[in-house]
């Protein structure tokens, strides 16, 4: 039951550059660690993050095992019109998580 935190301004002026912050709970097990018994702990990471605005991709990231647990990503976008941001995290073992946030542009 992973929790995600997404921070998008609820309102922005047209043309303003706004920051979007996301935090997703995930162990990001790198796949290079061994148990005390010597067995490799299999890799279990988020491999891809995408942010879309009104259906169009505005930001995407490929993530590798060097991304810390509970991945944090912050990036920018220009407020052009009111609408909805959709966030998607995809990872190993069928991991898929989504979130969304609306913005009103004046």
């Amino acid at each position, binding site marked *: 039951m992973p*929790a*995600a*935190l997404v921070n998008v301004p609820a309102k922005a002026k047209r043309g303003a550059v706004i920051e979007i912050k996301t*935090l997703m*709970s995930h*162990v990001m097990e790198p796949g290079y660690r061994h148990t005390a018994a010597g067995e490799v702990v299999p890799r279990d990471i988020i491999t891809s993050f995408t942010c879309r605005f009104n259906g169009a991709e505005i930001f995407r990231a490929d993530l590798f095992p060097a991304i*810390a*647990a*509970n991945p*944090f990503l912050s990036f920018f976008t220009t407020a052009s019109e009111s609408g909805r941001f959709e966030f998607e995290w995809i990872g190993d073992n069928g991991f898929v998580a989504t979130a969304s946030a609306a913005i009103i542009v004046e």
Partner: protein
Amino acid sequence: MMRRAAIAILALLGAALPGLAGEIGESARRSGYEFMSADTKAMQDDNTANPAMLSVLDGETLWRTKAGAAGKSCSDCHGAVDVSMKGVAARYPAFNAASGAPVDLGQRVNLCRRQHQEAEPFAPESRELLALTALIARQSRGMPITAGDDPRLAPSVAHGRALFMQRQGQLNLACTNCHDDNWDKHLAGSAITQAQPTGYPIYRLEWQGMGSLQRRLRGCMTGVRAQAYDFDAPDMIALELYLTSRAHGMAVEAPAVRP
């Protein structure tokens, strides 16, 4: 790495021994926050960047989830967490009249589960227990710590203090040797700090996850190569209580970030 730390501890304290344990004066007390880098402070300060807030979110769901044979949720009895739990964590560990002993916040949650929800208690350091204690502790953020004020706790505070002063482990170190006498120094790359438990449960960068004060104390005991107290052992609770009373009046920061 442990061996390197052990050598560093001995090198550090070789000169300091056999100094008397000097307790820290009220005005000299500093939260672990003060020892952190600007980046780690920023991580704690921004609620949308503090990974401990994921645990708080998790706790909000658990707070409203019915559990146990009684089919009750925390909110069924306590209502809104930001009202009913405001200031509660600042008083913990607190005296439990039924057992005549102190209980910490995690134990209090588990007492509720057993008695009122008729559910199995959560395991120490379980995701659920950390989430609920993070949620509850968060409602005391910024409030002064008052744990230990209850006069019925005096014998436990004194016992906890004795444990803090008592040398233990293969390195033969007491908590006080580092955290009263050498808190302004470094051990390997890390600040030693004063061991003021203002932010628990914490998100520790080293753990890449949440943990309780008990987990942190067990880590310290392993560090001096002592047998760590069991989770929830009376000595563990007494030590937690002494540490918290030692931080009397300092602001609750939970859920904090620590390196």
